[in-house]
C-alpha cells in the first residue's frame, strides 16, 4: 500500500442513502419494479433526486407507512400484500419486484425477507419478489446497487463454464464497447450483471472470473465468491491507466498472450491520450477537493491526479473497503489525504481554507459553494454518465474541465490573463 494518509471523521454527514440507486437501477432493468417500503420522505427523496415527473408511471414507487401500519406489524404485512397485489395487477409486465427496505421499515423491523418469500410463492411463475435494504441508517447512495445485486445472486443459475462476468451497472454503449474489446482479446463468453432484463440472469460458478466495474459492490463480490467465482483484483476502469489495468487483469485471468493485449490496447491508448491532451492542459496543476458521496472518489482522484495532473487536497469517501481499494490506493500519489466518513461542517471549513479550483460534491452543496466562488462538479453525474473504459477517458476529463472552462468564460479573470 502506498503512503496515503487515512483518517476517519465522524459528525453530520451530507450523503444520499441507498434508495437513490433505484434511479439508475430501474432504467437498467426495465422489467423490474422497485417498491420502497417506507415513508413519504423516501418517496420525496427519490422523486427529488431523479426528477421523475416525466414518466407516466415510473418503475418505482413507495408503499408509504401510515400510523396504523406502525401500530401492528401483522397488519403491516397484510397491507403490504394488498399493495403488492394491486401493483402487480396494474403492471402485469413486471417480472421482478424488489421490496426495498428503508430507515423506518428497518427501525420497526418489518421482515421484508419473509414478505418476499411469502409473496413469491403467491405469484409463483409470474413474478419473482426479492428484498434488500436501501436504508440510510445502513447504506449510502451507491450501496443500494450492492444490495439489489446481492439479492439477485441466489437466482443466478450455476454453471462451470468459463466466462468473464462484468459486475456493476454500466451505460449500455460503454458495456457494448468493453465487450467488443474483450472479444478482440479472445475472451469468448462475456456476461454482465445486472443484466438488461431482470429475468436474463447470467450463470455463475467456478469457471466465472469477475471483474468489478464499480467500486461499491462489496457484498455482491462476497456472495459471487461464495458461488465459486474468482474476483479479479484490479483498479477500476476509469481513465486510461485504470481501464488498461482492469482489462489486463481479465487478460491475465484468461491467460491471454501479452502481445495480443498490447497490440489491442496500444492504439486505443494512443488515441485516448491524444484526446485527453486539451483537458490535461486545463486541469493540470489545479487543486481538487472531493467530498464523500458516490464511493467513486478514490478512482476519480487517481485518474485526475495521475493522468490529468490535478493536485489532490483531500479525498473524502463514505466508507473504505481496504481490500477492494488496494489496487487503487497503490496508484495514488504519496501522502494523499483520504478521509473516511464526514463532518460536513468541518470539511467545508477545510474546503474554504484550501481554496480549491474544483470541488466534487453532492447536489445540495454545489450552489452554495458556487456562490462562494468555488467551482463544483456533481458527483451524481458520475453514476449517470458513460465514463468507463479507455475510450471514455477524455469524456471523463471533460466533465471536470467544463466547470473550469465555464468559469473562465464568465469570469472577468479571463480578461486579465488573456
Amino acid at each position, binding site marked *: 500500500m502506498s503512503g496515503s494518509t487515512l483518517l476517519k471523521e465522524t459528525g453530520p454527514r451530507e450523503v444520499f442513502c441507498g434508495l437513490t440507486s433505484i434511479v439508475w437501477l430501474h432504467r437498467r432493468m426495465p422489467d423490474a419494479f422497485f417498491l420502497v417500503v417506507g415513508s413519504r420522505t423516501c418517496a420525496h427523496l427519490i422523486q427529488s433526486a431523479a426528477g421523475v415527473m416525466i414518466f407516466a408511471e415510473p418503475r418505482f414507487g413507495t408503499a408509504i407507512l401510515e400510523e396504523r401500519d406502525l401500530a401492528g406489524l401483522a397488519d403491516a404485512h397484510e397491507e403490504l400484500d394488498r399493495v403488492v397485489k394491486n401493483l402487480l395487477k396494474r403492471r402485469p409486465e413486471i417480472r421482478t419486484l424488489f421490496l426495498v427496505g428503508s430507515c423506518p421499515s428497518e427501525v420497526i423491523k418489518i421482515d421484508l425477507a419473509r414478505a418476499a418469500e411469502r409473496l413469491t410463492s403467491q405469484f409463483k411463475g409470474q413474478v419473482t419478489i426479492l428484498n434488500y435494504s436501501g*436504508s440510510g441508517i*445502513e447504506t449510502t447512495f451507491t450501496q443500494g446497487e450492492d444490495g439489489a445485486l446481492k439479492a439477485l445472486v441466489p437466482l443466478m443459475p450455476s454453471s462451470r463454464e468459463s466466462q468473464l462476468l462484468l459486475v456493476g451497472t454500466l451505460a449500455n454503449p460503454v458495456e457494448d464497447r468493453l465487450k467488443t474489446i474483450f472479444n478482440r482479446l479472445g475472451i469468448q463468453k462475456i456476461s454482465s450483471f445486472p443484466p438488461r432484463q431482470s429475468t436474463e440472469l447470467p450463470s455463475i460458478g467456478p469457471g466465472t472470473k469477475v471483474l468489478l466495474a464499480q467500486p461499491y459492490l462489496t457484498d455482491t463480490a462476497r456472495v459471487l465468491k461464495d458461488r465459486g467465482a474468482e474476483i479479479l483484483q484490479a483498479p477500476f476502469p476509469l481513465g486510461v491507466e485504470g481501464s488498461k489495468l482492469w482489462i489486463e487483469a481479465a487478460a491475465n485471468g484468461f491467460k491471454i498472450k501479452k502481445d495480443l493485449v498490447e497490440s489491442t490496447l496500444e492504439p486505443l491508448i494512443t488515441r485516448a491520450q491524444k484526446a485527453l491532451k486539451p483537458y490535461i492542459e486545463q486541469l493540470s496543476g489545479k487543486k481538487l477537493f472531493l467530498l464523500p458521496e458516490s464511493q467513486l472518489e478514490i478512482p476519480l482522484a487517481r485518474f485526475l491526479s495521475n493522468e490529468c495532473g490535478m493536485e489532490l487536497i483531500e479525498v473524502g469517501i463514505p466508507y473504505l473497503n481496504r481490500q477492494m481499494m488496494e489496487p487503487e490506493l497503490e496508484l495514488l500519489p504519496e501522502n494523499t489525504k483520504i478521509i473516511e466518513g464526514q463532518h460536513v461542517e468541518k470539511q467545508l471549513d477545510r474546503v474554504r481554507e484550501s481554496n480549491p479550483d474544483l470541488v466534487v460534491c453532492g447536489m445540495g452543496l454545489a450552489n452554495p459553494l458556487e456562490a462562494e466562488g468555488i467551482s463544483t462538479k456533481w458527483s451524481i453525474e458520475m453514476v449517470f454518465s458513460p465514463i468507463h473504459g479507455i475510450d471514455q477517458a477524455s469524456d471523463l476529463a471533460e466533465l471536470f474541465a467544463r466547470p473550469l472552462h465555464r468559469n473562465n468564460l464568465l469570469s472577468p479573470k479571463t480578461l486579465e490573463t488573456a
Partner: protein
Amino acid sequence: MELTLWTYEGPPHIGAMRIATSMKGLHYVLHAPQGDTYADLLFTMIERRGSRPPVTYTTFQAKDLGGDTAELVKGHISEAVERFKPEALLVGESCTAELIQDQPGSLAKGMGLNLPIISLELPAYSKKENWGAAETFYQLVRGLLKDIAEDFSKQSKISWKEAGRRPRVNLLGPSLLGFRCRDDVLEIQKILGENGIDINVIAPLGAAPSDLIRLPKADANVCLYPEIAESTCIWLERNFNIPFTTTVPIGVKATQDFLEELCSLLDIEISSLINKPEKSKLPWYSKSVDSNYLTGKRVFIFGDGTHVIAAARIANEELGFEVVGMGTYSREMARKVRAAAKELGLEALITNDYLEVEEAMKDSAPELVLGTQMERHSAKRLGIPCAVISTPMHVQDVPARYSPQMGWEGANVIFDDWVHPLMMGLEEHLIGMFRHDFEFKDGHQSHLGHLGGHTNESEKISKGMNQTSTEKTLLWTPEGELELSKIPFFVRGKVRRNTEKYAIQVGCKQIDGETLLDAKAYFSK
C-alpha cells in the same frame, strides 16, 4: 399503507425546513438519518439558493441505535448553537427519528442553552409538507410571543389614528418553495404603499426571530397564503386582537376585494382613484376582440387550495372560461375548495394521486389545464395546453424575471401565462391544417412538440379511452374518420365522444360524416 408513485407534498419536516430556510437567524436541528439530507437540494437546486439551508441533521446510523442516540442529539445541538449562533432554535425529528422517540425537543430544553428553543412535533405518518410549514410557523410565533401576550396592550381598529401614524400590517405566509412568493411580496408591498399602508413585518420570508417579536405592533395581518399562515393569523387575532384578511389577492377582482377588506379592517377609506381595475391590463385584454376566442374555453384546475380557488374565479369571472373540473391535493384546504367548486356546479376532486387527477382531466375533456408541474406532464401526454399555477415547485417555477401572481401585475402575468399556451395550441392546429401545403416544412413545431395538431398521441389516447365502451357496438366508417380528422385536434376527442354518445342514443351502429354532423347539431342546441 398507501402506494405512491409520486407525491405532491413532501413530509412535514420539509415544511419546517421551508420556514427555517426562509428566515434569518434561525437554525433547525433535525434528528434524521443521512439520506434525509437530500432536502438541501430542494433549496439549493430548485430555488437556486446560494446558501445551505440552516439545518443540522444528526445523521444517526444503525450502529448508533444500540447506544445513546440522545447524547448524539445533544452533541449536534450544542455544536450547531456554537457554530451558527442562532437567535432561536427549532428542534425536531423526521419520520425515522419519530420512531425511536428520543424527544430531541425536550433534550434541547434541558441543556440550559440561553436562547429560545421551539420543539416541533410533526407527525410524519399522518401529516404532510404544508401542514408542517404552517405548524412550524405557528409554533415559532407562539413560542416567541406567548410570554408577552399577557401584558401586551391590545390593538384596536383605530390605534394607528390615535397614535398619529400610518396604519401598518404584517404580510404572513410567503416562504421558500412557495409559488412565486418572492415576487408576490414585492407586488403587495407596492400596492399597500400606494394606499398609505406600511409594512410592519414580512414573515417567514426574510424575517429573523427578532422580527417576529414585533408582529403584535401591526394593526392588521395580511394572510397571503392560508396554507402556511392561517393558524398563525388566528392565534394572533385571539391573543393580540389583530384582525386578518381572508381574501387572497390573486386576480383583478380578488385584488379589489382584498383592498376593500383590508381597508375596512383598518377603518380607512379605500381610494377608488388609486385602485382602478385598469391598474391591470387583464380586464382590457380580456375584453379586446382578440380574446373572443377565449369564450367558454373548458378549463380543468388542480393544485394547492389557494391558487386553485383563485384560478377558478379568474377563469370564470375575468376570462369567460368554463371551469369543467377542479380539485386540490391539500386536505387542509379541501373544505374551501369544495365550496368554491360547488358554486360552479362542480364536485371538487380531493386526492394525492396524480393518476386519478389525470383520469379526471381526461373525463372532463378540457381545452386548457391549469395545474402543477405534474398536470403539465399529464396534459402534454393528452395533447392539451397547460399553464402551471401551483406548487410543488420545479426549477422553472422560479423564473429570473419578476412574475408575481398577486396584485395588478400578477393578473397581467396570469393573462399571459394562461392565454399563450392556448394560442400555441391554435398555432399547432394551423400547422396541422397547412402541413400538406407545399410550403410546409416538417420540423415547424411549437412547444407541444410532437403532440401537435395531426394524427397523434392525443388521438390515440382518446381512441384508447373509448375502446372498452364503444368498440364492440360502434363502427366509424373511413369517411367518418376522415371527417373527424378535419376537426381541430384540441376538441377532436370531445367530438368523437359526443358523436358516439349521440350514435348510441339514436341507435346508430355505423358512424359516418353525416352522423358526426347530426351529433354536432344535436349537442350545439
